[in-house]
């Protein structure tokens, strides 16, 4: 079992940036009115934010983090590490974290790295940055997490395109001696790697002319082989088992009674799956915030975006929070933390 405990670190700031452009699911031509209503009722997704052709994930994260650094009162030379988590980087190489180090004007004596991860990415990224900071050699770190995942979706695939939205987030982590820090459970199962996949365009199946041929896989589901595929039934089956299991393992291993947790922030997969997870765990709806309605499934950004939008809950007193991410990989994990009045600027739109 992969359990991690990193004390002496604290989440002190959180921000997010979304594209200004909204796309209403009721207006999509791939749906009839009745189909759109049915889709919205089951997924909970009414609209999403869509990044323009020239807007990358790093642009959204840059906007999110630049203001956060100012609001925190951090001096840029104090920032010791920067981690960028995404499956939509600027380039195949170099790592986007290096580009962001330069663009943000951060010092070159910095630990900067990319992590390729999706729905569980914020949890994994938080574990890595916490591990880097926990010993106290590095004091301040930025975790930049997001995706412009709609760029990978076929507009003619009504199983994926109406579900996803674009967003970038920034999480500020600081070394603070004596803080309880973060407790993690992490896991993965690569045997089901084809459940969520872009089959062609990497180095296993390099892009060819046929990668760009539009094919109908089912009625209403047309895509190219260099676009996102998702096996909805397998994702659902995986999610309703592994998300509750991870939270229960975390709770048992670290002796965290679930009734003492104030909020459970799940990856925003879709409402039907997340409600099943909530019910399996026996959680009160008031303890489970959502951002699906207005932002859709924002992939790796969904947990910090949901946390930010629920920030009114975080701003007053110490809150016990469990967050759980699950998805592409297949990969999943949970974290327990106590937030103490983190700096949370208003959502940024560009």
């Amino acid at each position, binding site marked *: 079992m992969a359990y991690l405990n990193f004390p002496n670190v604290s989440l002190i700031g959180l921000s997010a940036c979304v594209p200004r452009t909204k796309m209403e699911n009721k207006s999509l031509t791939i749906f009839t009115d009745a189909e759109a209503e049915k889709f919205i009722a*089951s997924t909970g997704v009414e609209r999403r934010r869509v990044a323009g052709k020239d807007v990358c994930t790093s642009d959204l994260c840059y906007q999110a983090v630049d203001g956060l650094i100012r609001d925190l009162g951090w001096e840029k030379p104090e920032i010791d590490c920067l981690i960028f988590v995404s499956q939509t980087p600027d380039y195949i190489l170099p790592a986007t974290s290096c580009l962001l180090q330069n663009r943000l004007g951060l010092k070159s004596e910095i630990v900067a790295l990319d992590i390729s991860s999706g729905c569980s990415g914020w949890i994994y990224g938080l574990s890595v940055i916490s591990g880097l900071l926990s010993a106290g050699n590095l004091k301040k770190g930025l975790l930049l997490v997001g995706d412009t995942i709609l760029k990978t979706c076929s507009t003619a695939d009504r199983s994926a395109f109406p579900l996803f939205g674009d967003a970038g987030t920034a999480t500020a982590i600081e070394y603070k001696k004596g803080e309880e820090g973060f407790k993690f459970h992490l896991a993965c199962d690569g045997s089901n790697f084809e459940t969520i996949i872009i089959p062609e365009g990497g180095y296993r199946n390099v892009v060819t002319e046929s990668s760009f041929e539009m094919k109908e896989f089912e009625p209403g589901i047309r895509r190219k082989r260099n676009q996102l595929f998702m096996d*909805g*039934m*397998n994702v659902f*089956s995986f999610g309703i*088992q592994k998300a509750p299991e991870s939270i229960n393992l975390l709770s048992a291993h670290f002796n965290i009674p679930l009734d003492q947790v104030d909020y459970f922030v799940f990856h925003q997969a879709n409402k*039907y799956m997340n409600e*099943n997870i909530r019910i399996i765990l026996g959680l009160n709806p008031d303890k489970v915030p959502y951002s699906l309605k207005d932002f859709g499934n924002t992939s790796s950004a969904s947990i910090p975006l949901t946390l930010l939008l629920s920030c009114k809950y975080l701003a007053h007193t110490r809150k016990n929070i469990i967050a759980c991410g699950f998805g592409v990989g297949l990969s999943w994990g949970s974290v327990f933390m106590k937030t103490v009045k983190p700096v949370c600027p208003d959502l940024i739109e560009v």
Partner: protein
Amino acid sequence: MELINFVKDFAELFEETDANFFKPSTKFRDIEEWSSLVALSVIAMAFVKYKVRLSGDDIRKSLTIEDIFNIVKAKQ
């Protein structure tokens, strides 16, 4: 695990179709109310009530309710 109870659990996932319509031999895809969402509810029911994780392929290769029952039983 009894087939008759499984058929009853299966029937409860449908809102409009009469419960008496459901038999072990019912070809569930022929039910007008069948949808991808109902397929997910079958997966949820198997997990919550029978502690069995059905895959997408389990549903795709099944024709009748009894076919799904047999898979659930084999996985228990």
